[in-house]
C-alpha cells in the first residue's frame, strides 16, 4: 500500500501546483492591460470548451441525434437560462428532461 500512498501524495502535489501558483503570483503583480484583456476571454472560452464536447459526443464520437438526451436537454436548458436568468430553474428543467428522455422506450 506504500505505492498507493506515493501515488496519492504525488497526485495531490501535481494537482495543487497549477491551481495555486498562477493565483498566488498574479495577485501580487500589477497585471498588464493586455493580459487582463486576454484573461477576460478565459471564462466563456473554458465554459464553451467544457459544454460542447460534453453534449455533442459519446465515447469521443460525434453523436447528434434525438437519442442524445444531453443534447436535447441542453437546447432547452439554454432557452430556460436565457429567458429566466435563474440557475436552479435551468438545472431542474435540464435534469427533468434527461430523466424523462431516459424513461422513454
Amino acid at each position, binding site marked *: 500500500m506504500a*505505492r*498507493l500512498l506515493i*501515488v*496519492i501524495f*504525488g*497526485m*495531490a502535489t*501535481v*494537482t*495543487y501546483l*497549477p*491551481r*495555486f*501558483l*498562477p*493565483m*498566488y503570483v*498574479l*495577485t501580487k503583480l500589477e*497585471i498588464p492591460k493586455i493580459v*487582463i*484583456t*486576454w*484573461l*477576460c*476571454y*478565459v*471564462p*466563456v*472560452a*473554458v*465554459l*464553451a*470548451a*467544457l*459544454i*460542447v*464536447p*460534453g453534449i*455533442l*459526443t459519446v465515447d469521443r464520437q*460525434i453523436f447528434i441525434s434525438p437519442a442524445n438526451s*444531453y443534447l436535447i*436537454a*441542453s437546447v432547452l*436548458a*439554454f432557452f430556460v*437560462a436565457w429567458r429566466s*436568468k435563474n*440557475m*436552479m430553474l*435551468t*438545472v431542474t*428543467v*435540464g*435534469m427533468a428532461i*434527461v*430523466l424523462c428522455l*431516459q*424513461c422513454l422506450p
Partner: protein
Amino acid sequence: MTPTQHVFTGARKALPIVLGYLPLGFAYGALASLAGIGLPYIFMMSLIVFAGSAQFISVSMLAAGAGAVSIIATVFLVNLRHLLMSASLSPYLQSFPRTSLPLLAFWLTDESYAMACGEFREHERNHFFMLGLFGTAYAGWVMGGMLGGIFGGLFNSAQAALTMEYALYAMFIFLLVIQVTERKLVFAAGVSGILSLFFYLVIPGSWYIMLATICTATMGVMVEKWQDS
C-alpha cells in the same frame, strides 16, 4: 452582513455543484472500491487530491497496474487546465487576504471556477463568500466518494447517475448564458466551442479545454488590437 452570513450565502450558491458532485463522487468511490482500493485510501484521495477526472483516471490506471510515475504524470497533464482558471481569477482576488489563497486554490475546480466567475461578474464577493462556496462543493465531493466507497456495490442505477451528472452541464450552460454579455464574448464562446470539439476529437486526453481556451483568448486579443489600430 457578518462573515458567517457570507459563508452561508456562498454555501447556498454551491447547491447545483453539490447536486452534480454527489453522484460523480459516488461513482468514483464505487469504481475505486471495485478496483480493490481500500476505503481509507478512497477517502484520502478525495480529501487531498480533490479532482474528479484525475481521480477517475488514476483509479482505472491503478486497476490496470500502471506505475506510480505514469499515473502522476497523467494526472498532472489532466489538471494543467487549472493554470488558466487560477490565473483568470487573480484580478478579483487581489483584495483578498493572502492567507485565504492557499485554501481557495486547493478548492479550485472547473465547476467552482465557473460559478465564481459568474458571481464576481454580478456582485462584490469577499473571501468568506468564496470559502463557503468552494468549501461546500468540496464537502459534497468528499461525501459522495465516501458513500460510493461504502455503498457502491448496493446501488447501481446508471439512469440516476446520468441524470444527476447532467446538473453540471445545465449549470455550465446557465453560467455561459449569463456571461456572454457582449457580442465579442458570444463570438468567443462559439469559436471556443468549435475548437474544443475539434481538439477533443483529434487529440487524446483533456488538452482540448486548454488548447481551445488559449487559441480563443489569443484570437480575441488580436482582433481587439486590430480593431483599435
